[in-house]
């Protein structure tokens, strides 16, 4: 119990602490801070040096981008498996449409945007319009896109290097922090603002978290839910273009590493796969966590098998923790009830 005569500042701090709620976003933020400290003090003293940051932060940035896109789809209760194919197609378009020339990049980007909108619309209409399973639809669309990419790219593309302006931008940094990370951070903040402060964004959230209620309130929920797929596809497209710029010679494996990691990042950010509210900032933290953890394990020289075990274990622990935090009240009640019903449960049987 706080002293009512205590100073105003102390009282407000105390009240803030009492009102503080351990949300998944706060937990993942705390874990990321802890991981960054471990990285610097236990893994490599070079972690926060410019050389490490300049090469690590682009990877984090790209994962943040595509995970943010995936979060939009997951919020509707779906999942988007066409992500890697969309990213790979972006690499092929940037190569072919620009012909390696910086002055033709803009045309290539327009082409990329059109392709993303089409992919997102096909996914959204099939899932939300025809009520088909997002798992099956996005998998099939991903296969279609990948097949088209192979035909479009050709057996031996004559241009295999992206234009200099996109590769220069993708490899540029500010004091070691990649422009890609800065851009993705800004995008996550804008997405958060959009979802919480803009009417359209709030309708999108309402359509995702409570579709029936949204429809009854006059919101065109299906259209908003389709829009979530289109937005996601466009964000993958941005991620694909930047990944192509960073790699410089994108091939047909460009998007492969981002499928599972994007889902993991969203889930670590507190989202549930059955749909509901997602936080772009928490997703950002999830992406940072998964990338830095993988980086630390690589630096320590762990093999792929060991890395998978550790990452899997961390994911299981993380998800369990999120479940406990989300349901701490009901878990506490259940524990108390169990204690009242069976007070001498811990005593050995005679």
């Amino acid at each position: 119990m706080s002293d009512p005569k205590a100073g105003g500042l102390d009282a407000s701090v105390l009240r803030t602490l009492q009102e503080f709620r351990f949300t998944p976003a706060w937990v993942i933020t705390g874990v990321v801070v802890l991981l960054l400290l471990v990285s610097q003090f236990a893994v490599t003293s070079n972690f926060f040096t410019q050389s490490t940051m300049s090469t690590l932060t682009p990877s984090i940035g790209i994962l943040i981008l595509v995970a943010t896109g995936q979060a939009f789809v997951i919020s509707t209760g779906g999942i988007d498996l066409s992500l890697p194919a969309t990213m790979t197609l972006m690499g092929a378009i940037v190569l072919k449409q620009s012909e390696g020339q910086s002055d033709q990049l803009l045309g290539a980007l327009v082409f990329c945007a059109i392709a993303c909108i089409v992919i997102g619309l096909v996914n959204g209409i099939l899932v939300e319009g025809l009520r088909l399973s997002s798992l099956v639809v996005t998998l099939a669309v991903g296969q279609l896109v990948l097949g088209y990419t192979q035909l479009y790219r050709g057996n031996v593309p004559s241009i295999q290097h992206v234009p200099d302006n996109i590769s220069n931008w993708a490899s540029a940094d500010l004091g070691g922090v990649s422009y890609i990370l800065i851009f993705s951070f800004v995008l996550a903040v804008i997405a958060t603002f959009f979802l919480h402060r803009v009417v359209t964004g709030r309708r999108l959230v309402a359509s995702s978290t409570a579709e029936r209620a949204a429809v009854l309130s006059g919101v065109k929920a299906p259209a908003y839910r389709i829009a979530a797929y289109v937005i996601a596809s466009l964000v993958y497209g941005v991620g694909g273009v930047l990944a192509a710029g960073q790699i410089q010679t994108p091939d047909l494996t460009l998007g492969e590493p981002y499928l599972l990691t994007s889902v993991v990042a969203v889930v670590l950010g507190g989202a549930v796969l059955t749909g509901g509210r997602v936080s772009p900032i928490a997703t950002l933290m999830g992406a940072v966590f998964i990338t830095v953890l993988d980086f630390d394990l690589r630096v320590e020289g762990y093999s792929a098998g060991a890395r998978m075990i550790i990452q899997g274990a961390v994911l299981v622990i993380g998800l369990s923790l999120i479940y406990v935090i989300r349901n701490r009240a009901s878990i506490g009640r259940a524990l108390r009830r169990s204690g009242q019903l069976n007070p001498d449960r811990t005593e050995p049987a005679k």
Partner: protein
Amino acid sequence: MSFSGKFDRRRGWLKVTLLIGAVAIFAVVLLAGCGGSDDTTGGSEETAAAETEAATTEEAAEEGSEEASGETTVSADELQKTVDQALETEEIKADTLPPLMIEALEMATGEPSAEEMDKAFECWKADSCTLGDGPITLALADGFGDNTWRQFSKMNVILQAMKFPEVGKFIATNAHGELATFQANLRSLTAQGAEAIVVYNDFGPAAYPAMQAAQREGAKIATYVGSNDGAPTTAITTRVQPDICEAGKEMAKATEEAIGGPGPVAYFEGTPGNPQDEGWKKCATEAGIEADFEAETEWTPAGAQKAATALVASGKPAKAILYSYSNPVPSIVNVYLKAGKEIPAIITWTQNNETTCQWIEHPYKLYQTNALNWAARVAVNAAVKATEGEEVEDAVIYPQPYSPAKKSSCDPSKPAEFPGPSALVPEALTEKMLAGQ
């Protein structure tokens, strides 16, 4: 008219005939007397010409019969030139190579005609075509045919198959890295009557049962480049590959030459635990190389970039990186450039245009092997000969020397993944492939 009158007229015709004959004999004798020597020479020349023609015809016939059995005759100098081009070194004598490799490179010597190149190009684009009138169907079952290197290997298969009159139809399949697709492709090929199958095995022992099944159906399988050590002959008739352990020792030798000592170095490998990388790493270590960092790259630019980032951040002073694929090397170099660190020596398998061109722009010690695409030609020879019932070796083990990069291997007009002149695809055909015409 009386009988005597008739007899008189007959005697007159006889006299005329005899007179003409006498004049003719005289003329011949006279001509012979005037120009006897010339005529003799001319006769000799005609005889000689006839003999030469006959000999040429016989040689042509012999050549034809030799071609039919997949053999050809080129001079030792020409063969050595092809060997030097294929292996990117002048230190290996042709006569020290395995017989099947010599035979394949002999057949690869010389430029195909424009017509042959057109046919090869059309076939390369179409995936299924008729190369000749022969009864044998030759197939290429590629585990992952989606990169430029594999496409140049495919062209090598086609060009070599065209040297065999016994080969009629050609079919190419691509499993896009999926084992299940690869297995289905092999089943489909045997169902289509493919008797000689050239394979790039991306799946290691997991692919052996499918290959065994194909051979049970009567096909003969020859693999190229990828290591299939220990594969039963029931699965693979002939393995065309380097001695993986010897490759590791050669890498150790190149490392010593590049950095003047055994290390410390970093080992970069492709997919986790693949037998090829495990093999050369073990033997390089046994040869004295000191590795203090290892990382997987999945043989992709993104994977190589992650591995290099971890190496830079680890602070481990790797003086060299030993790797089994040249294509992702630019991603490694970019990490070092970005980090402002000195680029270590890189000793790598295969060859890549972007890697060499980047090395010219940002010099460091770069050792590469040759393109290795030509090994597909050796596999064609093995598969076709085995199909014809000839005895072929279980394994054709080729040398894999590592040479310092040459500026001449960079061609800025070509795409990043162009494997270089050692791919043994003629320039005119390369241009067509790259233009996609």
